[in-house]
């Protein structure tokens, strides 16, 4: 195994400063079946994030897309025999459907959306908090195609008292005493036209490790709701009591902006829901050397919960004054937005370039981290130190 440190040093000796080297968590690159080399955070259950280079293209390639599992039994499902069960106490006409029927019976919908793990950047928290120590790469942007969840649910003739949709996938625990990964959605979110049962990602069938043959896509909400290897949907009049709803994936009540998920609220904590406005510099790493006359741009991505990116700003004077970066093509409100800053206009020498995004809903990346026990929602303003010659 080649560590990322070795690779960076080998490829560009001295590219990273000693200081940033000391701060960077150890990184090991490894390829899983069907995947390019990803940064291994843990092997079983597999948790692998996308290296920065994989986040440069407008769409994150399927082979570069991050892998996140809670439980270690991950069966490879045969798309010819896979089926999805739609039932529950509030489904008056429960049914089961094959992949062929899912593709044929429902009008396909396609959209671009960022899938971001709730814990993306947890490894950047100070003080550190337990959990998978993700860097910036537990996220990606893809074009998803599938059936609208609402169409699939409506066929089951929902009763008026329906409250939540409980979702289960084929991956499961090693021992039967471990709680299965089951998540729920509030009915209104399940019936939102953007919520999909996706069977394609970037024009190809879903990779096994991203949820084949079908997964939920819940644009604007964090990845925990995007159930992989989907096998069962239960429409229920009561709140799902799963460990993964009641204990995990929760944030302190009132700490963050986000859609309400009232049936899962309690006085102290609420379920994590919306992705917060955020950005990432993908063109340069800390300590990079740049020639001012080379025509380079500092570039990256900005994204939010689907309100849409209003502006991306940059500062080269210690975050005192800000100027607008150039925005790239609009890929749809749930996709990320590319931005660029010409480095020709930036003063020479040692320069720290900070970038912050603002959403059309008025929210903006903060300077300070809102510390929370599970290490979610790090959307602090980031910067890179450049040596511009």
């Amino acid at each position, binding site marked *: *195994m080649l560590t990322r440190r070795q690779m960076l040093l080998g490829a560009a000796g001295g590219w990273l400063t000693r200081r940033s080297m000391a701060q960077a968590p150890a990184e090991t690159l*490894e390829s*899983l*079946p069907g995947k390019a080399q990803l940064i*291994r*955070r*843990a*092997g*079983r*259950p*597999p948790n692998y994030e996308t290296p920065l280079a994989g986040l440069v293209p407008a769409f994150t390639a399927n082979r570069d897309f991050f892998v996140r599992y809670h*439980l*270690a*039994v*991950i*069966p490879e499902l045969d798309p010819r025999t896979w089926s999805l069960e739609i039932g529950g106490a509030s489904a008056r006409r429960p049914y089961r459907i094959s992949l062929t029927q899912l593709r044929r019976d429902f009008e396909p919908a396609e959209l671009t959306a960022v899938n971001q793990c709730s814990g993306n950047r947890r490894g950047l928290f100070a*003080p*550190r*908090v*337990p*959990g*998978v*120590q993700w860097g910036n790469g537990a996220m990606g942007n893809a074009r998803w195609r599938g059936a609208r969840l609402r169409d699939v649910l409506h066929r089951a003739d929902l009763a008026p008292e329906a409250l939540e949709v409980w979702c*289960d*996938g*084929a*991956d*499961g*625990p*090693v*021992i*039967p*005493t*471990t*709680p*299965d990964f089951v998540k729920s959605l509030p009915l209104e979110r399940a019936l939102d036209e953007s919520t999909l049962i996706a069977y394609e990602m970037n024009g190809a069938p879903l990779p096994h490790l991203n949820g084949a043959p079908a997964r939920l896509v819940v644009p604007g909400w964090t990845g925990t709701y995007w159930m992989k290897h989907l*096998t069962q949907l239960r429409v229920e009049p009561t709140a799902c009591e799963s*460990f993964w709803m009641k*204990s995990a994936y929760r944030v302190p009540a009132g700490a963050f902006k986000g859609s309400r998920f009232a049936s899962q609220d309690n006085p102290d904590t609420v379920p994590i829901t919306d992705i917060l406005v955020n950005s990432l510099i993908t063109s340069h790493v800390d300590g990079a050397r740049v020639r001012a006359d080379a025509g380079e741009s500092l570039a990256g991505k900005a994204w939010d919960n689907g309100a849409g990116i209003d502006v991306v700003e940059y500062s080269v004077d210690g975050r005192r004054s800000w100027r607008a970066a150039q925005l790239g093509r609009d890929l749809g409100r749930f996709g990320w937005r590319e931005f660029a800053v010409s480095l020709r206009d930036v003063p020479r020498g040692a320069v720290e370039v900070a970038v912050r995004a603002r959403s059309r809903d008025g929210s903006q990346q903060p300077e300070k981290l809102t510390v929370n026990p599970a290490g979610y929602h790090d959307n602090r303003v980031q910067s890179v130190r450049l040596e511009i010659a």
Partner: protein
Amino acid sequence: MSVPRALPLLALCIAAPLRAAEPPPLREGPGREVTQTNCAVCHSVEYIPMNAPAMDRVGWQKSVQKMRERFGAPLSEADAQVVLDYLSVNYAGKGG
């Protein structure tokens, strides 16, 4: 997915041929074998060093308790104590 109780552990492990390389071994020390044997039933032991910077004895105590009570790890009281002592001595990096 519901897991039939009759299926042996081995068969379930084979169901997920991910070919991830073996993680580095845990540090030498009293309790290493008990820790390795019990924790690796459900997850590779690299989760331990990964979390070390966030952990002190209290943190590991909560973690071991969570594994037993929430995740159903079949760990005896005595073994849980051995695991806790091992982790606290070897992988408590909080504030370090």
